[in-house]
């Protein structure tokens, strides 16, 4: 039996340069980045991608006080996606809705805050918050979303480092195909800019971007790139089986065509281009396509000197010179690295290409690194192309997790 066809019917997002898909896409086409200076505890001013959605749009002040930033981002994105999907949420059986949210990490922000709090009380743990455990459990972002929406189906997070955004979608597609749920809210989120630890960790790795102009700091593929800009963000989708989406007359953004997830098993932090290439090839094969059938490849490249080159090596191995209709871009120049949200946001930024046949460019590339000079790389200016029927989205993460997700133009 052929597996059920799964389609994307709604998108809700917040990025450092936009709080809706329309705004986000416009900024990607106009080269508008969203990086700013932010005060980080113990570290002073750092560059970061900060989201400016209205948290009170869907939450009360008390919910914001009790909950987490990750929960708030999730709730905003989930509600925006539901509204965009046009589904009648009131009549949707809530026990048949699944929430699957990818995140790079969760709990660091709240733990750091509590340690800072008790430092003001001579480290006496009787001042430690009773909210610490519900705030730091790994399922917190999904759990807060289920509370806010009254969804009683499965709601949990998927920890997959910076591959997590893709993983949320992949897992949701699997659960829909298994019949575990009938409607899924899925994708990835990150609150990472609110933990000093992630900044300090990347700085100790010599992997934190520096630039006098914040908007130029994130520079994947540029010869002078010098590291990651850490960002927060979120992007959640509504996914449905095709027959369900059609039965309610839903608009369909795209169909899940194929995916693959594998592991490097070679290093804690260094990527492995051989395994990345295997992952991409397997996703293409599952989609029943050839490399030359892929029209947009959105890269994961984070602007680290080595990581970008290694991903380019993987892409070169899969696509080579024989794919004249394949265009390659990157979104992190605009929004930095949104960690667990990266894959989901970066896919969303490319979805409108099915309609406008325009590939958004990689920006901030003043001097292209020859090692990253892939054929079909779209730099600095958007490119209108003849055909966009398929988009491949790469997301890779620490401990060697690789994910590749392919969506295709929906046709009956």
């Amino acid at each position, binding site marked *: 039996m052929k597996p059920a066809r799964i389609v994307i019917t709604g998108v809700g997002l917040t990025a450092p340069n936009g709080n809706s898909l329309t705004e986000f896409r416009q900024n990607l086409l106009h080269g508008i980045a969203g990086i700013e200076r932010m005060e980080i505890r113990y570290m002073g001013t750092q560059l970061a991608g900060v989201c400016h959605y209205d948290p009170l749009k869907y939450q009360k002040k*008390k919910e914001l006080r*009790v909950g987490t930033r990750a929960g708030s981002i999730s709730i905003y994105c989930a509600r925006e996606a539901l509204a965009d999907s046009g589904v009648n949420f009131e009549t949707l059986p809530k026990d048949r809705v699944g929430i699957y949210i990818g995140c790079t990490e969760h709990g660091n922000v709240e733990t750091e805050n509590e340690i800072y709090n008790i430092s003001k009380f001579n480290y006496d743990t009787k001042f430690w918050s009773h909210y610490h455990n519900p705030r730091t459990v790994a399922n917190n972002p999904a759990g807060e979303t289920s509370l806010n929406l009254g969804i009683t189906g499965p709601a949990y997070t998927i920890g997959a480092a910076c591959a997590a955004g893709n993983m949320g979608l992949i897992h949701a597609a699997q659960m829909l195909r298994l019949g575990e749920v009938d409607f899924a809210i899925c994708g990835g989120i990150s609150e990472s800019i609110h933990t000093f630890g992630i900044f300090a960790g990347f700085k100790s790795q010599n992997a934190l971007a520096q630039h006098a102009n914040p908007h130029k700091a994130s520079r994947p593929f540029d010869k002078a790139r010098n590291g990651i800009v850490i960002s927060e963000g979120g992007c959640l989708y509504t996914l449905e089986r095709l027959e369900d989406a059609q039965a309610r007359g839903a608009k369909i953004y795209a169909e899940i065509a194929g995916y693959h997830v594998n592991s490097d098993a070679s290093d804690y932090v260094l990527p492995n281009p051989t395994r990345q290439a295997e992952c991409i090839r397997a996703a293409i094969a599952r989609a029943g396509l050839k490399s030359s059938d892929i029209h947009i490849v959105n890269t994961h490249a984070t602007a680290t000197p080595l990581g970008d080159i290694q991903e380019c090596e993987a892409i070169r191995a899969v696509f080579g010179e024989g794919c004249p209709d394949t265009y390659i871009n990157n979104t992190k120049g605009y929004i930095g690295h949104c960690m667990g949200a990266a894959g989901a946001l970066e896919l969303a930024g490319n979805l409108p290409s099915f309609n406008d046949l325009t590939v958004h460019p990689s920006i901030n590339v003043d001097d292209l690194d020859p090692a990253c000079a892939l054929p079909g790389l779209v730099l600095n200016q958007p490119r209108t192309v003849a055909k966009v029927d398929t988009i491949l989205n790469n997301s890779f993460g620490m401990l060697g997790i690789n994910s590749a997700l392919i969506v295709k133009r929906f046709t009956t």
Partner: protein
Amino acid sequence: MTKDECKQVVLDIIADIAPDEDLSNVKPEVRLRDQLQLDSMDFLDIVMELRKRHSIEVPEADYQHLASLDSCAEYLTPKFIALAAKG
């Protein structure tokens, strides 16, 4: 500290932990949970804020005394006075 001042201390804490609530007409003799959206975690917040802001300890066995503003004032005012006397 007077009992009225003590009630204001408690109301100031509730204003922070339940920021969506209208506290302009809280009836001092009525249970707080019967007139405000407060749950058990919120009462733990009141206990925590009394500890943090005023160095007042409320043992679990005494939580019942935090039921209304009046009972708060009866229970907490002597504690505030004792604390002030200690200097």
